[in-house]
């Protein structure tokens, strides 16, 4: 059984690692965030599998932490994307957009 759970962990890690290609290719930042989200859930799954396979204590707490902070990070992304102005388009808007140095004086 231990072997099977470890193999499942490797499998899940492997598949979500394929999802990393989305982080590399984008094209939009929302896509990258999606890939990170999948990796987060996959990471939690792999963690639980590993933990049960090796009898690690307190693994549910680590899982809870990861799930909580993954949600938090996504919220931070969305906030940044809409109020910071230039996260999403990833291009020219970034430079012209916000007048820097408002209080430079």
């Amino acid at each position, binding site marked *: *059984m231990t072997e*099977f*759970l470890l193999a*499942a962990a490797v*499998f*899940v890690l492997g*598949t*979500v690692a*394929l*999802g990393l*290609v*989305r982080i*590399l*290719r*984008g*094209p*939009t930042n*929302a*896509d990258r*965030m*999606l*890939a990170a*989200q*999948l990796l987060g*859930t*996959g990471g*939690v*799954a792999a963690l*639980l*599998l590993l933990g*049960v396979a090796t009898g690690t204590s307190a*693994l*549910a*707490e680590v*899982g*809870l932490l990861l*799930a*909580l902070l*993954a*949600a938090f990070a*996504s*919220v931070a*992304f*969305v906030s940044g*994307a*809409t109020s910071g102005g230039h996260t*999403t*388009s*990833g*291009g020219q808007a970034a430079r012209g957009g916000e007048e820097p140095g408002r209080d430079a004086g």
Partner: protein
Amino acid sequence: MSLALDLFTIMSVALGALFFLAGTVGLLRFPDTLTRLHALTKADNLGLGLIVLGLLPQVGSVVAGLGLIAVWLLALLAGATVGQLLAGAVPPSESRQSHREGSRP
């Protein structure tokens, strides 16, 4: 009895891992951000849920089992709302221009 439980674990975990594979394939193959989001939210909720379900017979105590279920519930809650948020962060134009930008290394 324990054989039946083991079989249950194997079935459930394997099915969950397959859902992760499906999610990754969707993430890589679907044409734009919103369809990818769709694929992802289905896959990671079900994938993690099935894996947690499969792991339940393998943990020793009721408390540990409840911890696992809590991880899943939290991921479910966070995944659902974050999916909504990410969808809101995708401007309608962006999914169409998705192949114009690209930041390959």
